[in-house]
Structures are given as C-alpha cells and as structure tokens.
C-alpha cells in the first residue's frame, strides 16, 4: 500500500523547534488561513448536479441530497483508487454531518410532487492537489458550489411535470438555510501549540486535530475531536470562538466571489429582471 512519505528527522525537528519559537515554516501566524482562491473550479472541485428522482418511501415530502467524495491519485500518490481509507471516511462523514445533517440545504424545497417526484441533488467533491486542510477546503467548495448552482425550473399541471430548459425559463437557485464552514485546528507539542489550516507537512507531525463547523449566525453545526492528544476544555472553547470569526470571514469571501461571478455573467441592469427568486 503506498503511503505518504514520512518526514525526515531533520525536517521533523526543524518544524517542531520552529513552532516552539512561535514560528511557522511558511511564515504565517498560528491562526492564519492560507490564501483562499475561489474561481468555481480549482484544487478542490465540487460539482453539483440535479436530476428528477423518486423520493425515499420514508420521506415523501423531501428531496434527496447526497455528498460523495473522491480522493484520486491525481492529488497525491498516497491515494489509491477504489479503497476507502480512514481519511476518506472521516472526510465524507464530516461533510455529511456539517452540511447535510445540520439542514443547510432545505430538502423540502426539492419536492416536486409528494411521494412521486423530487429533485436529487448530488455534490461530488474531487481533490486535485493535496497539501493539508482537506476538510476545510472541501467544505468551502461544497458550500460555494451549492450557492452557485441553479436548477432548471419546473411547472406542474395536475400530474404532469414539465422541466423547462435554461433558455425557456430562468433557472432557480437552491434554497440554503445557512452556510456551515469547517475550521480545522491542529495541536502540537502535547497541545501547547494550536494551528489553523495546517499544511501537509504540519499535518504529518501533529498530535491531534479538532474540526469545528460553524455558520455565521454563531451556531456550531458539528464538532469532531476524534481522539489524539488530550486538550484542556477551555482551549477547546477558545477554538470554537476563533472558528466563528474565521467562518464569518470565509462566508463573506464566498459571497463576494459569487457576486463577482454573477456580475461577469449578466451585464448591466438585466440582473434584477432576470432573478427568479421570490422575496422572503
């Protein structure tokens, strides 16, 4: 089984000693994210697709929403096709808990005819280049993609459902109730040093991690500290508060990027006229 090559002893002691002297090897401060670039397709690709399907028999009034993740050898030689590693399980579970279970996507709005037809929304996450921060990047990508996605409009006459093409009617955005953002904290040196958004090298050295998903309203959607070094409870609470400010910053960043994208696609004053969204 191919594995991520370990760090050499020199690298290991260099990074750890630097951390002890409050220096990160890429010069960031401990609580700084790496530069975030969002142009709707890069590094992590998240693609949303929609199709009409039959709802699950136990949830007749809800649509279907699934998130699938794929770690392919494209991103790193350590990833293998067709075998589920712990890392992949944790990634898909975290996304599932943060986005699906917290009810970020309003599945009831995906219902077309109760019990017969509904939209099935599928988010595919593909990792293109791996340098740590997998969960954070995937979560941001899915949330941004869900906001960016437009599904075809439908009209219902009795039992007949017509799916209108994009030319016929303006496509509708999905109804998102909130935007959870995952922030990962890494613990080093027995928990004395806490870093945000660790690189791959740092991830190989850490003693423990904590993933918190927060939305900008200050609601924690998911916490996962799955073992690792034991940390004082107060430190964990501080991490939650730091996660909140980071999540607010990232949410603002996503919406500014989305606005930019929309403006580039719809020139001039057509923007207001083209909207199919209802006032809420």
């Amino acid at each position, binding site marked *: 089984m191919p594995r991520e090559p370990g760090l050499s002893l020199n690298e290991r002691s260099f990074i750890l000693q630097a951390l002890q002297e409050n220096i990160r090897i890429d010069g960031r401060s401990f609580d700084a994210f790496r530069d975030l670039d969002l142009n709707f397709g890069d590094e992590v690709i998240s693609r949303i697709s929609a199709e009409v399907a039959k709802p699950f028999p136990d949830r007749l009034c809800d649509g279907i929403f699934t998130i699938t993740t794929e770690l392919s050898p494209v991103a790193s030689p350590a990833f293998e096709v067709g075998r589920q590693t*712990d890392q992949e399980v944790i990634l898909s579970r975290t996304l599932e808990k943060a986005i699906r279970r917290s009810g970020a996507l309003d599945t009831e709005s995906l219902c077309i005819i109760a019990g017969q037809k509904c939209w099935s929304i599928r988010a595919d996450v593909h990792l293109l280049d791996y340098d740590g921060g997998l969960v954070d990047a995937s979560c941001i990508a899915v949330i941004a993609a869900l906001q960016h996605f437009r599904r075809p409009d439908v009209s219902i006459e009795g039992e007949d459902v017509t799916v209108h093409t994009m030319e016929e009617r303006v496509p509708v955005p999905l109804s998102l109730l909130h935007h959870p953002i995952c922030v990962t904290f890494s613990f080093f040196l027995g928990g004395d040093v806490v870093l945000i958004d660790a690189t791959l090298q740092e991830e190989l050295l850490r003693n423990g991690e904590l993933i918190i998903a927060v939305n900008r309203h200050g*609601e*924690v959607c*998911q*916490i996962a*500290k*799955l073992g690792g070094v034991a940390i004082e*409870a107060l430190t964990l*609470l501080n991490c939650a508060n730091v996660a909140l400010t980071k999540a607010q910053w990232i949410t603002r960043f996503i919406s500014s990027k989305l606005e930019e994208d929309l403006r580039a696609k719809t020139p001039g004053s057509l923007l207001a006229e083209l909207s199919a969204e209802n006032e809420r």
Partner: protein
Amino acid sequence: MPLDTSSYSFALLRLDGRRWNELRRIHAQISTQAAADGSSYLEMGNTKVICTVAGPAEVRRTGGGSADAEVKVEIDIAGFSGVERKKRTKTDKRVAEMCYTIANAFSSSLLTHLYPRSTIQITLHVLSQDGSLLAACLNAATLALIDAGIPMTDYIVACTAGSTSTYSSNDETADPLLDLNGLEEMELPFLTVATLGAGEKVSVLVMETRIQIGRLESMLAVGVDGCKQVREILNEVVRKHGKKVVDSIIE
C-alpha cells in the same frame, strides 16, 4: 419518532425521572471472558456493551510494523440491540468513524512505544443501545485494557451532555443535561465528551447537532463533570476486582 420532552420545564424531571445532573446506573464487570487477554462488560442505563482485548500480539501480515504498537478497533452492533431490527455492516461510515475515534484516543493514552511491531486488538459487542453508545464503548474499552494489563497514562472515561433547548430557540432558561438516554438523544442537541485522567483534559469531543455557540460552555462543563463521576465508579470497579484477585492469590 421524536418524543416530546417539553414536559421537563414543569417539574424539572426528565423522561426517566432523573434530574439534570444525574447519571444513569452504571454497572461494570471486569474479566468476564476467560479466553481473552482482557475483557469487560459495561451497562450505562440500558446501553450494554461487551469488550474484549487481544494483545499486544505480533503483527499478522509480514513486513511493515511500526515503532509503536498499533491499536485496532472492531465494533459489532447486534441486530437486536436497537428498537428496530437493523443490521449495521462494518462498512457503515458511522461505525467506521467510531472505530477510528476509539483507536485514535487509546493510541495516545496507552504507552504504545513499549510494544514495537505489535497490535492491540479491541473488539466491542453492542448488545443493547439506549443512547451514549460511543461513551459506553470508550468506558468498556478502558476497563478491558486495564484487565489486559496494558500500561496507560490514565483512564479514558466518557459520557454525554445535552441541552434542553433546540437550536433555534434562544431562551436563556435552557438547562444542560447529563448522560442522555436514547429518546433524549433523538430529540435534543448533545455531545459526547471523553476525558483523560481526573483533570479537565478532553481527549474526545464529538457533536453532531446544531447548537448556539454560547450553549457549548455549559454543556462541556457538565460533560467533564460527568466524566469525573464516571471515573470514580470505574475506579471502584477496578479496585474491587484487584482486591479479589489479590485475595484469591493469598488463599
């Protein structure tokens, strides 16, 4: 089906008659299976778990093997353990996540460097589920590892803590709750917390429900306090068993 827990505010009593800070009955036994290197049986209320530990033993596959012992966890959830008969396979991601959590927690609390190139296999059988499943598994594993005589820095003990309010309501009257049962878990936001030792060092913290960030502090405080109580109980079980073993040797 969600059950209504809103009657809590009338008498401040929960569905099973407990107050907010009361644990359910914890009953534990050590050395229940003669064949295993270490074993335990643990009940937290109606959640019942059997744990066996094999090892430290030689790594089965050839080559490889690291400088530290590897902790492997397998969880078998019996089909009859829940309200509905539902078979959970090993590929179930929820179970896989629990296995990963338990393995990860113990590989940093056990002194794994003493057993290079070996594995410690923890096998858990869930006989009955009524909330606090992950917590019960962690507690049972701690007892079985002690029985197996594997050196550890301290006990890992776990319990759950919840809150009486739902995520949307912002009322300040919400009470934190200790040790939720299955019905409460279905309805209320809750977290599982595991501490290492008698202090406030948190080894595992898992929450899957949405909650206001301000609620977190009280829930975590109640959870950590609950862990201290659980620790006392488990400690007593271990000491009682140790005394019995010593007495039998003297005779």
